[in-house]
């Protein structure tokens, strides 16, 4: 059992507050990813859990015990740093077994343990090398090995892949997922890369400006973002937003009017919005369709980006806004073409003037059982 609980955690430096009250429940064996733009406080939060930063206010519990004042090594955690932070004067084996050496374990046992871990990470041949003789990916593996040796209750990863090149990052991402699966231990992972977050996480915590914007499974965040920020942050390319006015509200949905005067019916619950209000319609690029027979709006193609498998069209529509439309790789559209776009109201999100999402009348089928969801004060109940 290794659970981590954060209760109203704050971090203040003399005059600024970096973390403004975070509540979070991390379950045993869960892979939790903290994600957010740079400066959102995600690394600070991780470092507070690690014990590298003091907690200004609030409680941090590991396995139900308050550890605010427990030194880092006594918390039963291990951390993998963005810069690897290997000891340059030690060999791979010494690096991995350093914590055992500090704990007074015999040389023989230390070496055996390091070799066991090296076997898992395919580092056996490199045990006697120094970090400078290793590639970036190997160094990262040693850093992970150093964490593994300690048999921690919880693994902490601080942007571990951001110093690697794209191909290696994908490979390491897969290895990390495999590692989590085989170790079955609790992992907390910080990244600014939402692809890493989506692919690795059981639960994503989206942070901005020191507060939790939303906690939920990757698909929960994708299909039911709580607000404009999460909607824009999760998903790539990012969600399109259009300013709209509410023209009718009833139980089956809300009808909104686009700048082009077109109407879209969005299945959201009535109550929080009324006729005449301004609102924001959000729709993901992959949910827009170029459709001759069912056009909702017309737009002018500004740029065509062909990625082979898919094509991104950047389309200027009435009201002056640019929509990103994801179509298949064979799409024939050219720059300066005028194309019809279909907006499916069922796939749209609606946000009120404050940017909060208006709850949908239904839940996406992959997010219904809420296996990775939790009771969270910041979370809206749909």
């Amino acid at each position: 059992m290794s659970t981590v609980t954060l209760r109203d955690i704050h971090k203040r430096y003399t005059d600024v507050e970096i973390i403004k009250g975070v509540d979070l429940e991390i379950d045993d064996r869960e892979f939790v990813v903290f994600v957010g733009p740079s400066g959102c406080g995600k690394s600070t939060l991780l470092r507070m859990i690690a014990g590298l930063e003091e907690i200004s206010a609030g409680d941090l519990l590991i396995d139900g015990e308050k550890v605010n004042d427990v030194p880092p090594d006594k918390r039963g955690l291990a951390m993998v740093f963005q810069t690897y932070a290997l000891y340059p004067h030690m060999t791979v084996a010494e690096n991995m077994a350093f914590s055992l050496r500090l704990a007074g374990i015999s040389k023989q046992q230390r070496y055996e343990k390091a070799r066991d871990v090296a076997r898992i990470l395919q580092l056996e041949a490199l045990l006697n090398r120094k970090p400078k003789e290793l590639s970036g990916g190997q160094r990262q593996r040693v850093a992970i090995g150093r964490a593994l040796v300690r048999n921690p209750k919880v693994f902490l990863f601080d942007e571990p892949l951001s110093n690697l090149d794209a191909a290696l990052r994908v490979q390491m991402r897969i290895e990390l997922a495999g590692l989590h699966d085989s170790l079955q231990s609790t992992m907390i992972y910080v990244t600014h890369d939402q692809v890493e977050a989506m692919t690795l996480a059981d639960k994503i915590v989206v942070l901005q400006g020191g507060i939790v914007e939303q906690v939920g499974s990757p698909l929960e965040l994708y299909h039911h973002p709580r607000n404009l920020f999460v909607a824009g942050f999760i998903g790539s390319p990012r969600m399109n937003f259009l300013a709209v006015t509410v023209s009718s509200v009833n139980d089956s949905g809300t009808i909104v009017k686009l700048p082009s005067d077109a109407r879209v019916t969005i299945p959201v619950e009535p109550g929080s919005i009324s006729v005449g209000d301004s609102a924001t319609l959000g729709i993901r690029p992959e949910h827009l369709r170029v459709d001759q027979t069912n056009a909702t709006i017309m737009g002018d193609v500004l740029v065509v980006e062909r990625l082979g498998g898919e094509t991104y069209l950047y389309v200027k529509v009435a009201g002056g806004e640019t929509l990103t439309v994801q179509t298949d790789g064979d799409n024939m559209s050219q720059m300066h073409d005028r194309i019809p776009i279909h907006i499916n109201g069922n796939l749209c999100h609606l946000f009120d003037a404050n940017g909060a999402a208006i709850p949908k009348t239904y839940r996406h089928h992959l997010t219904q059982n809420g296996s990775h969801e939790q009771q969270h004060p910041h979370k809206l109940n749909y």
Partner: protein
Amino acid sequence: MAQKTSRHWLLTLLGWLVACLLFFPIFWMFITSFKTEVAAVATPPQLVFQPTLENYVAIQDRADYFNYAFNSVAVSVGSTLLSLLLAIPAAYAMAFFPTKRTKGTLLWMLSTKMLPPVGVLVPIYILCRNAGLLDTRIGLIIIYTLINLPIVVWMIYSFFKEVPKEILEADRMDGATTQQELRHVLLPLALPGIASTALLSIILSWNEAFWSLNLTTADAAPLTAFIASFSSPQGLFWAKLSAASTLAIAPILIFGWLSQRQLVRGLTFGAVK
């Protein structure tokens, strides 16, 4: 390409010129020590002469070189060790747990080096006298430590600053205490820097003359006092003085030459990374 080569040659030539200029006084002192007193003051100066060892014999008759040399070694090594002992914890605190006043403290420490030593001669002399430290090696060690401490702290501080913060955080996660962190991580990483700091401190202490001449007479007198004892207001003494100087600087010169790689590496540590 041709331009680059000629530029290269010009720089090499300039380098040699500067080196010769710096080396010439030592070279001249060295050859003067093998001249007779008369030859030493001859004009024009003689480059070709009959070498003699009489100056070396004479100075060994008049003073016990090894006694002075022992004092020099004891005082410079002793003060260096004491400086490191004080400077490493100080630099550790300043580099890794800085406060708002750390920069100010560092600058203030350095500013004490700008004070002319003679300005505090009388108070220090009286303090040493009252403490019974006049003409003792301990007295000199304390004075030299105080003189060199600002530089030693500064240097070690800058070497510690080069050590990535994450490595120290990693060792804290691994369970290292402050002492273990210093011993197993920080000191090995900063070793080239600490070694060059120690070398510099030894050289500075070895060459220090003002305090050693004023605070010692016989028992604790180092080689600087040994040299000074061969200078006199009248008569011919240049050859003997040169012989004494040669003997005094020979150990530190050899030491410096052997450790120059270390010294240069330490002094340029972090400059090219």
